[in-house]
């Protein structure tokens, strides 16, 4: 039945902050071209897992394979020189977006890829081209989020991760984001979403993974 391969494979991943175990021997795969939603109680390590996949955290042990390229083995980055190459396949939309405050909407994206046509294309695609000359502080939460998505998409990641994409949005905007994410997925991009919002999860997900306790051995495949 399993015709799709995996965009991310996690094997026996262990992550500690000091002595504190966040997850222990976690194994989990994320299917290519699907939208996988991770649900789970606060503080369980969802954000931390996403940050491990995106190269923002070191891990204590285990393996991460991204798009069939070994990224972490035995808790170490496999090929330090090519880290960026592996991570180029991964995009992340932060919970609080982390737009660059001193750059306009346009410049926020132009600074990543110096191609005006592409910048215009993605801003238009996300309905933000008219706002291109505004600064982040002049945008609403939903607008900031769309800029953050455009900024992540312009690099054509094979995998796009979202941390709590609906936490700053009202319910009509949530459905708007859901349809944007579905559209992204239709183009073949794999998506991982972390959320507390079960309604949103049901609206958007191909797969839902519920975490309950990651600090003991966990395997979800």
């Amino acid at each position: 039945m399993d015709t799709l391969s995996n965009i991310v494979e996690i094997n026996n991943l262990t992550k500690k902050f000091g002595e504190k175990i966040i997850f222990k021997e976690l194994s989990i795969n994320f299917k290519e071209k699907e939208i996988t939603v991770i649900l789970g109680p606060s503080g369980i390590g969802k954000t931390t897992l996403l940050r491990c996949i995106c190269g923002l955290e070191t891990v204590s042990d285990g393996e991460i394979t991204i798009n069939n390229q070994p990224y972490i083995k035995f808790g170490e980055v496999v090929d330090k020189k090519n880290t960026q190459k592996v991570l180029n396949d991964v995009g992340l939309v932060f919970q609080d977006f982390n737009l660059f405050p001193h750059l306009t909407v346009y410049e926020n994206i132009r600074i990543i890829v110096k191609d005006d046509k592409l910048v215009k294309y993605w801003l238009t695609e996300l309905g933000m081209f008219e706002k291109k000359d505004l600064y982040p502080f002049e945008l609403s939460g939903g607008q900031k989020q769309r800029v953050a998505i455009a900024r992540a998409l312009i690099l054509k990641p094979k995998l796009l991760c979202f941390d709590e994409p609906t936490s700053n949005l009202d319910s009509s905007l949530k459905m708007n984001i859901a349809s944007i994410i579905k559209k992204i997925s239709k183009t073949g991009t794999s998506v991982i979403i972390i959320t507390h919002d079960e309604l949103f999860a049901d609206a958007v997900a191909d797969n839902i993974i519920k975490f309950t306790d990651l600090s003991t051995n966990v395997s979800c495949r």
Partner: protein
Amino acid sequence: MDYYLTLINQLFLGALVTLKFFILIGIVSLFFGLLVSILGLVSNSFIKRIINIYVLIMRGTPLLLQLITIYFGLPIIGLSLSRTVAVLIAFALNYSAYFSEIFRGGFESIDKGQFEAAFVLGMKKRDTYKKIVLPQVIKRVLPSISNEIITLVKDTSLIYVVGLGELLRMGKIASNRDASLVPLLFVGLIYLLIIYALTKLLKRWERSYGYFE
């Protein structure tokens, strides 16, 4: 009337010396201050320790003492510097330390999400610092930098100990010669004028960063 003309002429020459040192020291110290702060952020703990000790000494002892040590003290171990060079070195060492602390605080105040966003978007470290972090740091530190710059104008009066004819020294010479306090009054006015103009300029600079939050 003639008296005032010659007096103003003398003080004007002194003010030029003051301004010359102020501008040179200001530029050199801002540059090295930024450099030291970045060095402190990116280097190992040994270099960090050295930087900490340097900052401690520069901030923990009077600038006047530092200047005296460099100009009068160094010749004892066979290293004599010209007055101008001694002044430049003493002031640059001292002010770089202050500026580096201000910049360090600025860098540390930048949300780590900015670095992370740049990393996830594949930006090089260099570009991250240059294009993302530094503009935000400059905005944050400008008020403190402005303060320090204004203090520098007044601190240049310490140069008198090595016998260079900056503004205050010229005023004092005239004051002693004429047995009058009028020259010193003029000196005060000239400082005030310089600092007034500078304040305007610095405020404008700060405003130029007001377009973002």
